[in-house]
């Protein structure tokens, strides 16, 4: 990419996950400063953008799709992203969020708010996104371009993948991950 061209636009988003994949991304340590020299961080937990921007080159998606709000956000992200990366086991397999699929959201909510509470027992609903009947992997909802496995993937693997995608070497982004 020539100096005249704008830097590639990088975003991250986390859905139903623990943020561990984002933390592993931060574990690239000082390489973070190199990375933001090569790409603009336009959306994610570290920056103040409120709306997911248009024209994003690479988005890392952490977490499963657990609520209606997760799904709504993911659809916007996919529409505005060139290369979508499914980051970590929750995004790829649903992993921990998928553990509630066998009984569904009802019993989970009842446990937290009707049984394990002492006052105002009720399931909170006002202005809150409802949970989906089951958690879904990202690729069940939108097409995914790159998969990076791990709980979480190591910082080195994340850095290697981002570098490869930014350089346009999509095949080398996650060489160890093969499906089918």
């Amino acid at each position, binding site marked *: 990419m020539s100096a005249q061209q704008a830097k590639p636009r990088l975003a991250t988003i986390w859905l*139903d996950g623990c943020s*561990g994949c984002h933390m592993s991304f931060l574990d690239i340590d*000082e390489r973070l400063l190199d990375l933001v020299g090569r790409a603009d961080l336009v959306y994610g937990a570290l920056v103040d953008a409120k*709306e997911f921007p248009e024209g994003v080159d690479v988005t890392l998606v952490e977490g499963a799709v657990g*609520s209606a709000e997760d799904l709504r956000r993911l659809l916007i992200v996919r529409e505005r992203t060139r290369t979508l990366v499914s980051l970590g086991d929750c995004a790829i397999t649903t992993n921990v969020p998928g553990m509630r699929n066998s009984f569904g959201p009802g019993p989970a909510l009842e*446990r*937290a708010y009707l049984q394990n509470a002492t006052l105002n027992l009720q399931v909170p609903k006002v202005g809150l996104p409802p*949970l989906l009947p089951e958690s879904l992997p990202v690729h069940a909802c939108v097409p995914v371009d790159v998969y990076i496995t791990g709980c*979480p993937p190591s910082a080195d693997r994340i850095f290697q993948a981002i570098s490869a995608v930014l350089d346009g070497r999509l095949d080398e982004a996650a060489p160890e991950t093969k499906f089918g």
Partner: protein
Amino acid sequence: MSEIVIEPVTRIEGHAKITLFVGADGEVTDAHFHVTQFRGFERIAQGRPVHEMPSLMARICGICPVSHLIASAKACDEILGVAVPPVAVRLRRVMNLAQIVQSHALSFFHLSSPDLLLGFDHDPASRNIVGVAAQAPQLARDGIALRRFGQEIIERLGGKRIHPAWVVPGGVSAPLSEPQRDAILASVPEARKIAARTLEWYKENLASWAEEAALFGSFPSLYMGLVHETGNVAYSDGGLRVVDGRGAHLLDGVDPRPYWDFLGEAVEPWSYLKSTYFKPLGYPEGMYRVGPLARLNVADQLGTEDADVELAEYRLRLGRFPNSSFHYHWARLIEVVHCVAMIEALLSDPDILGDDVRSRAAVNRSEGVGVSEAPRGTLFHHYRVDDNGIVQWVNLVIATGHNSLAMNRSVLQVARHYVKGDEVKEGALNRVEAVIRAYDPCLSCSTHAVGQMPLQIDIVGPEGQLLRQLSRGAG
């Protein structure tokens, strides 16, 4: 009346929005801090074998997995009915302290320093760690290096920076090797220097944040935290102390495990975050705070020399019981000094290399509670199992829930000052978010759910109609 909605709240750890209720006269009358995601760990854990619990529970949170590992393992220790070998107790402490350092570094440098260095009214497009790196490269590098210091200790002990499987029921899975111990000790001087120069920078600039310090959750409340028998701050063990901000101890040295005797959990219809309250005072009068500000108010001293000098200056300038949540930042930096010194002290004892680090047992009790201090405050894990060690029931009381009442009140205080009518400047909204950042809430933990805490502000009219939704556009 109208509503202002801030969504998402940015530079915080989780999914949230804020609703401000504005009366006909344009004054903010109420505020709700909504946590908008829920995961259900208390139900997910049911049916799992007890030995799996620490590793499963670590997945509540990628920021403070070690806190959950420790509290979970302590609950499991009780269920096994074992005495954890003394070396393992100390090794767990080292990992917990390293966790606090790395989490505090994330909160202070990566999330809050953009407000403090660049200003609350700075252009949101560069009001972030990249903007900090451009203006003050040393500060950004220090933040990354201090976080790395904590994360590398966790990796050297547990083999992995995030979700290490090393903390197990009965102790830890492997002893510390001499080369790893030496490598950690070799990294201490740099961490100590970073902590010291960041504190100097913070103290030099404190006067420039006087307005925010006076308004960011500045009110009396109770404070809760763990203390040793000496009255010094405790992080992995110790008794519970609750103080009222005037010097009275409402609880002192109390066994924290029967938490249901003194803590209640209330549900509000507009948040997945439960609000914990001090039962003797009821709800919501039993509002209390936990985390760095509370721990420094609760403890007599920290117990390491440099940190206690800093604590003395803190109390000299702010009083014995600072009650503004803005001072979470300063308290956090002082805790970093203390935790680094504690790590060095624990590792300087040659006994730390001992290889008796795990007690093994089958299930001997049907119930266990584990308590520790997470970076954000006191954490409780409570399990019941059957005779085969299969988990039947779980309750988790999480640091961010303790602070829920105070966070709501803080948001209201900041909004009342900066928001008039529905003409709201971006910098005012950022201050509403910044007071939340001061608490460093972890919403993954708090609803056993995580997200990047989007913040939306709704402005709701007197009849409950949505007047306006505020959100900042991206580049």
